[in-house]
């Protein structure tokens, strides 16, 4: 079995499939959008080509390749464990380490963003595509304790797990992209809870650019022995307030928030334009980072991100609202395994160098 798995043919087939997937996935991004193409070709184990032909996804191919290389390594370790092959051994270890690094980066890293204007402070970043249902009790303080549940697991009749016994929340419908309507009567239905007067959600086809979808959910909320319909729509500005057990609960469906181990305050945002043009020449954000023990000002601009532990904060874009108030958008990348690819590259480099040096040395000393 192991001999079969270590076959060089499998290696060749996997490399060929990776070539096809890379080419196909890159071309498909034009039609399907970046996120969808990534999901279909690279993040999947398989997908249906032309709607019915199963084709292996990059995840499956890479796993097979990993196992193939591992088996190959195990079966021929005796050959590798010779001083003359030490370089080769290190090279293969480096490649295996690279696979592990890729696996770690894929599963551990996350990308999100912060959008704020001068004077605002935040300690959370937002997902581009994922949604969460969040609720908290209004305390009128400067901070609030959030309980949030990822919507990825939502399906009809799913009971949302909560620590509180004040209410129970059950998913009735959840749409990844939806439209919201009011019934137009102007009358408030006391059984429907929604801050903006929304009474109906209708599903819409999921857009290929996932960040443009607006999720919507219809929930059943039970408290005080009564049952109500709670409607939450992804771009509502204000949360829906519900008085439960004498406490003012706020419910909102929003892009998933990631708590940060620091607080960022935007002190100043500067944009420079090309003379006579509407195109930005440069833009930068002056932020104050506070971690509880330290506080310092940092300039974030092109190729000069803010780095803090596993977090890297880049200047991503900017915009302005109708009042002309400018907002900066900072991309936040959390990558706990960011060192691993560098280490694996160094290991491969060291292995290659050692191998060539040893080969050169051996060829010299041989008559």
């Amino acid at each position, binding site marked *: *079995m*192991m001999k079969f798995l270590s076959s060089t043919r499998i290696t060749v087939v996997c490399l060929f499939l990776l070539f096809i997937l890379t080419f196909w996935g890159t071309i498909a991004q034009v039609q399907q959008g970046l996120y969808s193409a990534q999901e279909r070709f690279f993040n999947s184990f398989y997908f249906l080509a032309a709607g019915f032909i199963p084709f292996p996804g990059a995840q499956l191919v890479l796993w097979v390749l990993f196992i193939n290389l591992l*088996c190959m390594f195990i079966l021929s370790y005796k050959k590798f464990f010779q001083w003359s092959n030490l370089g080769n051994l290190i090279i293969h270890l480096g490649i295996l380490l690279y696979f592990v690094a890729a*696996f770690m980066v894929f599963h551990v890293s996350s990308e999100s963003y912060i*959008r*704020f*204007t*001068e*004077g*605002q*402070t*935040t*300690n*959370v970043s937002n997902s581009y595509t994922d949604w969460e249902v969040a609720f*908290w009790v209004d305390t009128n*303080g*400067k*901070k*609030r*304790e*959030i*309980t*949030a549940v*990822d919507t990825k*697991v939502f399906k009809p009749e799913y009971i*949302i*797990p*909560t*620590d509180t016994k004040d209410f129970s929340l059950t998913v009735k419908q959840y749409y990844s992209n939806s*439209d*919201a*309507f*009011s019934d*137009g*009567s*102007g*009358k*408030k239905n006391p059984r429907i809870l929604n801050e*903006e*007067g*929304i009474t109906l959600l209708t599903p819409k086809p999921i857009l290929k650019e996932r*960040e443009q979808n*607006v999720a919507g959910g219809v929930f059943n909320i039970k408290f005080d022995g009564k049952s109500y319909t709670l409607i939450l*729509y*992804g*771009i509502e*500005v204000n949360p829906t307030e519900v008085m439960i057990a004498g406490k003012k609960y706020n419910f909102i469906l929003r*892009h998933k*928030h990631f*708590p940060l181990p620091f607080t960022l305050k935007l002190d100043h945002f500067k944009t420079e334009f090309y003379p006579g043009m509407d195109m930005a020449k440069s833009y930068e954000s002056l932020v104050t980072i506070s971690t509880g023990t330290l506080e310092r000002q940092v300039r974030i601009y092109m190729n000069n991100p803010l780095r803090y532990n596993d977090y890297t904060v880049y200047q*991503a874009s*900017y*915009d*302005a*609202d*109708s*009042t*002309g108030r*400018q907002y900066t*958008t900072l991309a936040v990348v959390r990558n706990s395994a960011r060192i691993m690819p560098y280490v694996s590259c160094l290991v491969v480099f060291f292995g290659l160098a050692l191998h060539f040096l040893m080969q050169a040395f051996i060829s010299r000393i041989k008559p």
Partner: protein
Amino acid sequence: MKWIICVFLLVFSGCQQSSKENHYTEVVPQAPAPTVPATPKMDSSADPHAGMDMDMSAMGGMMPGLENSVAKNISYGWTVPEGWKEEAGQGMRLATFHLTSDEKAIDSSIVSLAGVAGGLEANLKRWMGQIGLESSATDLTGLINAASSIKIKGGQEGKVFDFTTIQLQGKPTDKSMIVVMLPMNNATLFVKVTGTLETVKKNKDDFFKLVQSIEPKGDASSVTANPLVGGDMKDPHAGMNMNSVGSMMEKLGPPVSNISWAVPEGWKEEAAKHMRMATFHLASDPTLIDCGMIALAGAAGGVEPNLARWAGQLGLSDSPDTIAKLMAAAMAVKTKDGKDVQVYDFTAIQTNAQSTDKSMIAAILSVDNLSIFIKMTGTLDAIKKNKESYLKLISSIAHK
């Protein structure tokens, strides 16, 4: 081989999606610095507060990459009234205002929305629902008719919908609202103040000052004052321009308590509700006719536009010919204090109608700065039968 399988199982067991709730502490979003007009690059305004159809096209802007096509090149400036403070123009609101002394007393906002933003009547209905008022067709018509104009610093004119003026029986603690709709080229600007009836009334002057201080910036050349468009509304206010806050306040407050009347025999009077000073029904069958007395500010659109609208409600032609016939058939009735009132009897022009068709008889009485509408609706047969009692009601009206 066994340990390879073990590694697999270990790896995949760690990849299960977790539905566990997540707890974290979030800094409550704070107010940004006051507006600094600049060239907008990507608009992020629009608000589900105003539209009925909360479509993405009208609500973009929450996320980077989403655009609202509305008011792209327009930015706005305003002056915050004394004693007020501006808070986060967060998300889709351009700005939010509160009193510095009591943050919870009122909530005022400026919101920009695409086009006609769901239509006037639909928005009025929803706002009435939000403050707990029922929205009958009569109330809506009255509110539209009672709307006065207000001019902002940029020269554009908007309509004022002051719900405090129709909450005749409202308690000081009841919810209330004033909304100004400002058509700005291809967008509508909504300026709203909500609070209790008492706090909204108290802060009315400052709210109107805020509205008057609004000035479009950026590509102001594209900002033009358009007539309000929405539903089947026709602007009944040609020539009715109350620019100053003072004059508008005078026109909007209906001092209706000094009007008296006698309930005709066989009729019963119901308590004043919302805009209605009084509602009358037959004691024997309350469903047969509906007679309402409504006080509205100023000329309330004038006689002819109102007749045209009523004719439309009955399914009659609203042509000048119909209006001329109605005016020719109008009866002059004297009120108890000697005022002449014209009574417009639609039964007189419904010559081919069946007895079960809808009909109406209406009168407009001018008292001080008010127009009092006394309108009876029902089937043609019921209106004809109760016409005499209706005329008695008109004759019993007296202004103290």
